[in-house]
C-alpha cells in the first residue's frame, strides 16, 4: 500500500520510529479479551503461566461490542496492537480466509495437547479452507433455563422433549408474577447481531424463516419472519421484565441468577455460572430443557464458540502459541476444576473434560450440554434451503451490518416504538441495500 510506504519513510526521516523491542527471552504479550466470567477466570489463573515461562501478559479487557470493534479495526489495518485475541465462531473462518490469523495446525503435532480431543464440530467452526485458525475456550448452543421451584409452585410439568414456542408461551403466562418481581420469561432484547439477534435468529429458524433465499435475496418481509417477531414482541411485552429492550445476555444472566426470571433461553455456557452456588442464588432450583421448536426443529439452538487466535501481525507468535496451548489444554481445565470448582469448568470443547467423572459429578448437566451442541448443524440451519452456513448468523462479512440493523429494528418494535410490520419492512429494505452494495444482488 503506497500510503503506508510513504508515511513510513517519512517517519524514518524524522527519526520518529520508536525502537522496536528486541526479542529477548522473556516476552510481554498483549491479550484482548471480553469481560465474560470464563475469561475472568483465565485472567486469574494466568500468573501461573507467567511464572512458569517468565513471560508477562498485558490484559486488555473490553465489553463485547467494543472488543469486536477494536480487534477488527486492529487486525484489518495490520495494526499489531495485540498478540492474542478472543474471537468468535463468526470471525474465525472469515478472518482466517483473509489471511489475518496465524494457522494453528501445528498444534496437531503436539501429543500432550491432543488436538483431536477437541470436538470436531467446534474445530470445523474455527477453520477455513481446512486450516485451523483458533482454539476454543468454550463453545455453546442455546437451551432453556427454568426454575424448578416456580414450575412446581405453578403446577407445571417441565417438558422432557422439545416443546413448541406456543407451549412455551403458555408456561410463561402461568409463571409470570410481576408483583413479586418474578417475570415469566427473560430473553435478549438489547440490539446487536450477537445479542438479541442470536435468540431472535433461532426463534425465526423455528418459525421456518430464513435470512436469504438461494439467490441471496433477503427474506425479512416473509410471513415466517412476521410470525416470529410478532410472537417475540407479544411474549416479551406480556411476560417479560420491564426494560427488556435493554437487556443482553449479561443483563439477563444477572436477572436470572438473582431469581427474577422463571425461564430463559440462552447460552449453555452460562449454565455453570447459574448452577454455581458461589455465584448464583438459584443454583439449586435451576434445570434445563431444549430450546423450543415451532414449525421446524432445525436451527432452534445456536452455535457459538469463544476462541483464542493469534493475529498474523503479531511479532511474538511463538510465545502467543505457547499461551494458547496452555489456556486450552487439558491441564488448564483441570486447574479451573481444582481451584474454582468443577462446576465452573468451561464446557463444550474437549471430549476428555466432558468424560471426567469429577465434572459429571459436580455438573450433571454437562451431558445435556454436550448432546445439545452435537445436535446443532450450522451447515443445515433452516427449514428451507439456504446458501449460507451459520445458525444464528450468516457467515459473510456483510452480516454484521445487516444483523445490527435488524437487531435495532426488532428492539424498537419490542420497545413499542414501531410496529412489527414497520420493523421488518425497514429491515428488508436495509438488507436489500446492503446486499446490492456488496454485489450479491445484481
Amino acid at each position, binding site marked *: 500500500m503506497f*500510503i503506508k510506504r510513504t508515511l513510513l519513510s517519512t517517519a524514518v526521516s524524522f527519526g520518529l520510529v520508536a525502537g522496536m523491542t528486541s526479542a529477548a527471552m522473556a516476552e510481554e504479550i498483549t491479550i484482548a479479551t471480553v469481560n465474560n466470567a470464563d475469561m475472568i477466570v483465565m485472567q486469574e489463573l494466568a500468573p501461573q503461566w507467567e511464572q512458569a515461562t517468565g513471560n508477562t501478559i498485558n490484559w486488555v479487557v473490553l465489553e463485547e*461490542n*467494543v472488543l469486536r*470493534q477494536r480487534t*477488527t*479495526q486492529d487486525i*484489518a*489495518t495490520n495494526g499489531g496492537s495485540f498478540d492474542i485475541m478472543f474471537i468468535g465462531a463468526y470471525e474465525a473462518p*472469515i478472518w482466517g480466509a*483473509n*489471511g*489475518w490469523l496465524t494457522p494453528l495446525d501445528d498444534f496437531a503435532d503436539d501429543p500432550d495437547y491432543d488436538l483431536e480431543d477437541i470436538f470436531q464440530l467446534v474445530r470445523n467452526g474455527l477453520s477455513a479452507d481446512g486450516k485451523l485458525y483458533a482454539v476454543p475456550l468454550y463453545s455453546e448452543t442455546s437451551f432453556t433455563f427454568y426454575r424448578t421451584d416456580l414450575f412446581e409452585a405453578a403446577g407445571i410439568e417441565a417438558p422432557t422433549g422439545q416443546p413448541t414456542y406456543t407451549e412455551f408461551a403458555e408456561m410463561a403466562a402461568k409463571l409470570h408474577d410481576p408483583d413479586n*418481581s418474578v417475570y415469566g420469561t427473560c430473553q435478549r432484547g*438489547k*440490539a*446487536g447481531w450477537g445479542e438479541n439477534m442470536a435468540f431472535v435468529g433461532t426463534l425465526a429458524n423455528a418459525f421456518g424463516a430464513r435470512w436469504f433465499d438461494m439467490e441471496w435475496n433477503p427474506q425479512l418481509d416473509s410471513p415466517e419472519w412476521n410470525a416470529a417477531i410478532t410472537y417475540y414482541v407479544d411474549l416479551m411485552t406480556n411476560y417479560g*421484565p*420491564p*426494560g*427488556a*429492550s*435493554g437487556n443482553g445476555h449479561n443483563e439477563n444472566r444477572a*436477572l436470572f441468577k438473582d431469581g*427474577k426470571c422463571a425461564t430463559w433461553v440462552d447460552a449453555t455456557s452460562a449454565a455453570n455460572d447459574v448452577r454455581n452456588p458461589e455465584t448464583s442464588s438459584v443454583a439449586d432450583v435451576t434445570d434445563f430443557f431444549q430450546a423450543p421448536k415451532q414449525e421446524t426443529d432445525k436451527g432452534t439452538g445456536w452455535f457459538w464458540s469463544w476462541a483464542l487466535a493469534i493475529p498474523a501481525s503479531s511479532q511474538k507468535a511463538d510465545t502467543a502459541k505457547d499461551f494458547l496451548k496452555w489456556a486450552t489444554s487439558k491441564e488448564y481445565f483441570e486447574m479451573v476444576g481444582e481451584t474454582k470448582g468443577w462446576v465452573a469448568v468451561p464446557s463444550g470443547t474437549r471430549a476428555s473434560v466432558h468424560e471426567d467423572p469429577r465434572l459429571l459429578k459436580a455438573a450433571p448437566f454437562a451431558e445435556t450440554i454436550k448432546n445439545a451442541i452435537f445436535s446443532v448443524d450450522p451447515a443445515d440451519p433452516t427449514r428451507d434451503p439456504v446458501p449460507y452456513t451459520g445458525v444464528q448468523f450468516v457467515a459473510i*462479512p*456483510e452480516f*454484521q*451490518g445487516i444483523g*445490527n440493523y435488524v437487531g*435495532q*429494528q426488532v*428492539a*424498537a418494535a*419490542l*420497545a*413499542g*416504538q*414501531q410496529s412489527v410490520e414497520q*420493523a421488518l419492512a*425497514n429491515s428488508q*429494505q*436495509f438488507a436489500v*441495500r446492503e446486499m446490492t*452494495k456488496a454485489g450479491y444482488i445484481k
Partner: protein
Amino acid sequence: MSTKASRSAARMMISPAVLLLLGWMLIPLCMTVYFSFLRYNLLQPGTTPFAGWENYYWFVTDPSFKAAITNTLAMVGGILCVTTIGGIGFALLLDKPMFATGLIRIMVIAPFFVMPTVSALVWKNMFMNPVNGIFGNLATSLGFQPIDFFGQYPLASIIFIVSWMWLPFATLILLTALQSLDQEQLEAAEMDGAGWGSRFWFIMLPHLARAITVVILIQTIFLLSIFAEILVTTNGGPGTATTNLTYLIYVSSLLQFDVGMGSAGGVIAIILANIVAIFLMRMIGKNLDA
C-alpha cells in the same frame, strides 16, 4: 503598537499553532476525502477500486440518515436549552448570599468532572434500570409501574444524562459573569421601584448575553459529537431513536467497517459542522467584539 517587526514576529509565533492545526485538520481530511471515493471495506481486503460518488449516494440514502440529522439537532438543541436555562437559574441562585457557599457550589459543579462513560454507566444502571435502579425502586414502592427510560424515552434520557454533565459548566461560566455585575446599578434600579422581573430582564440578562453566547458556542462544539453516552446506554436505538450523525458514522465505519461509506459520512458531517460554525461565528462575532 503594531510595527512591521512585531508583525512578522507575530506571524512567527502564531505559525506553530496554525501549522499544527492545519496538519491535524488536513491530513485526516484529505485521507477521509480520498477514502470516500473508494470502495474500501476493511473486512474485504484486496483492491480498493475507485467508486465515484457511490459512497455518498449510499450514505445519504441510508434509512437512518434523516433520523440522524434530526436527532443530532434535537440533542444539541435540547441540551442547550436545558443547560442554558438551568444554568441561569443556578447562577442566580448561587449568587445569592447563603451559608456553606463553598460546599453547595462544589456539589453543583462536581458532575462536570465526571467522565462521560462513567456518568452514562451510573445513570443507566444505578438509576434508570427499571428492575434494580433507584427510579424503578421508587416507582414500585409508590405503587407505579417502573419506567423503562431507554425503551420509552430514549432521546429524552440521553438529553437528561448529558445535561447533567454540562449544566455545571454553564453554571460556572454564567456565575462568573453574574458576579462581575455592578451591584450599585441593581440597587439603583431597585430604589427606582423596578421589580425583580424587570431587573432580571433589563439588567441581568443583557449583562449575561455574552456569557450565554460563549456557553452555546463551546457546548455546541462538544455536543455535535456526543458519542460515549449513546454507545454505553442505547447503542443508537431502539431503532434509530438515538442515532446521531456521529453514531451513524461509527456504525458504518467501525461496525460495518465500510471505510469508504464512513468516510463519505465524515465528509458530510464536516460540511454540516462548518455550516454550524459559520452560523455560530456570525452570532458570536456580533456578541463577542461588540
